[in-house]
């Protein structure tokens, strides 16, 4: 069993607190992704789980055992680093087997395991090369191999694909997904790329400034973001936010257009209406009046970047045969089932009419 239980974890560097009251339960063999903007603390959290950083307070349990004070090697976790961190003067074979050499395992046994891992990662022809003779993707796989050899309960990945170019990144993403199916362990993965998060994760943990903003399955976060930050972070292109004021069961936009709300909101309160680009369509009787400032045609889909009367910018998705032009003034209609309502503080308070 490789369940992780983090309770009340805080971490400070001197006077600066970088992790605030982190509470997290990670299930057996789950694939959890920590995601968030730079500086949100996701790498720090990962390194604290790894044991490379000391926690200031709180506890970490792995499989019921308290590992909060253990050295990294005693925690039964392995880490794959962003820049691979391969030992430059050692061969691939020696790199992968390093941990077992440190543990003084029998040499024949090490060799056997190294070859096994190499086959799994398609590195068997490269065992006697040095890191400098390998491509980025190959190096990454050696780093993964090194982690595999420790037979850990948990694999920790620290932005492993950030140093690869776009094409290779897609490739490696698929390989990691395949790896996950081949191994029986919990994966904790850190990235700033929400596409990686959405495609790889069972559970996503969104972090901001050292706080957990929301935990949930990718589609949960997509359909029911807890606050404006999560709503804006997950999903590409970004969700649009229209400023509005509440009047009974209606939200009134700056230019007078209205959209119905699912329930009462205090009269006069400031709201932000969240609508994803794919839920805005040009419509004759639409409530949202905009001027088109930019059109992007990507092939299967097009986007119109528009501006409201008060200057707020929106993006709307268009069908490929939209026939619209720059500068055109059109009306957009919203799919009310996908309308999100956020209060002045950014918390989600509900949806539009016909939405739960």
């Amino acid at each position, binding site marked *: 069993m490789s369940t992780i239980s983090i309770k009340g974890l805080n971490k400070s560097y001197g006077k600066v607190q970088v992790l605030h009251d982190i509470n997290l339960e990670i299930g057996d063999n789950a694939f959890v992704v920590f995601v968030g903007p730079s500086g949100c603390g996701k790498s720090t959290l990962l390194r604290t789980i790894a044991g490379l950083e000391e926690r200031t307070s709180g506890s970490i349990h792995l499989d019921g055992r308290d590992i909060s004070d253990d050295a990294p090697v005693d925690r039964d976790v392995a880490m794959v680093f962003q820049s691979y961190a391969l030992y430059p003067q050692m061969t691939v074979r020696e790199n992968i087997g*390093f941990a077992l050499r*440190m543990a003084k395992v029998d040499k024949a046994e090490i060799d056997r395991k190294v070859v096994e891992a190499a086959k799994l990662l398609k590195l068997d022809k490269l065992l006697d090369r040095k890191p400098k003779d390998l491509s980025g993707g190959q190096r990454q796989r050696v780093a993964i191999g090194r982690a595999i050899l*420790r037979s850990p309960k948990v694999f920790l990945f620290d932005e492993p694909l950030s140093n690869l170019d776009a094409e290779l990144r897609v490739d490696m993403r698929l390989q990691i997904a395949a790896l996950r199916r081949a191994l029986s362990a919990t994966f904790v993965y850190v990235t700033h790329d929400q596409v990686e998060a959405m495609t790889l994760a069972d559970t996503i943990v969104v972090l901001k400034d050292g706080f957990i903003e929301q935990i949930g399955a990718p589609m949960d976060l997509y359909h029911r973001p807890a606050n404006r930050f999560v709503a804006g972070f997950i999903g590409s292109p970004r969700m649009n936010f229209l400023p509005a004021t509440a009047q009974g069961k209606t939200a009134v936009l700056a230019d007078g257009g209205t959209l119905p709300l699912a329930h009462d909101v205090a009269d006069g309160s400031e709201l932000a209406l969240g609508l994803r680009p794919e839920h805005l369509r040009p419509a004759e009787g639409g409530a949202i009046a905009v001027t088109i400032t930019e059109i992007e045609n990507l092939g299967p889909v097009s986007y119109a970047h528009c501006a409201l009367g008060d200057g707020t910018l929106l993006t709307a998705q268009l069908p490929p045969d939209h026939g619209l032009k720059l500068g055109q003034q059109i009306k957009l209609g919203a799919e009310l089932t996908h309308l999100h309502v956020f209060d002045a503080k950014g918390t989600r308070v509900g949806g539009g009419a016909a939405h739960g």
Partner: protein
Amino acid sequence: MDKLFRLSRTEQLVVQFILIAWAIVVLFPIGVAVINSFKPNLGEVYRGPLNLPSEWSFGNYVEAWVGANFGKYFLNSVIISGCTVVIVTLCASTTAFVLVRMPFRGSAIIFGCFMLGVIIPIRLALAPLFVTVNTLGLLDTLTGVILVQSASMMPVAVFIMTAFLRSVPSELEDAARMDGALPFSIYWRVVLPLIRPAIATVALLTFVQSWNEYFLPLIFLQSPENYPITLGIAEFRSQFAVQWHLMFAGILIMLIPTIIAFVLASRQFIEGLTQGGVKE
């Protein structure tokens, strides 16, 4: 930009003149030494110190090496400098490793103590140092000189090593920690190969400083058979002061290792100079 730094023909000539003049000032003593060291007898030196030798004989070098014991002095220098280099490179690198990567309460103070040693030269503490060495029974031993010289080079060496190590990312060491490597292993297998340039710089600076050191051996050695070459040549002078041809040969024997080191590693040298002193 070019216009600023390019020189007209006349300017170039003037500049060349000045530079050649200083080059002569620099090379003159060495040239004279070389020429006269090959002269077969003293008379020739006196008659015409600036003339080329009538015949180029190596006799003076042999005489100095064997007859005047330079071979022994040279050997002592090799032992002292060699040991000092090894000790300083090892100790400074391990100390830097702990202070930078494994800090603890008080490591900042220890670092401060080393930096104090960069500013305040060891010679000021001559008297207490002499007492220490004497008490330990290390007076007039090569070991004593080696330890004192090593200690005198430690501050600058630690400074260079810590500065370098701080600029190296610690990811590789993190990986080794994850793999269960203990500090010894991390130091030996991961860190040492990474700080090779700093080690080269420290080794070079230590070697030259140690080889050229006159004062410390003077204080801590008494028997001539322990003398390094710097003391040896002073001894030599008291015996052979007038024998200039021999003196020149002896001096050149002393100069050769540092000139070789310089030729082989001139860039390292200059880098070490600017690194040790300036951080512009």
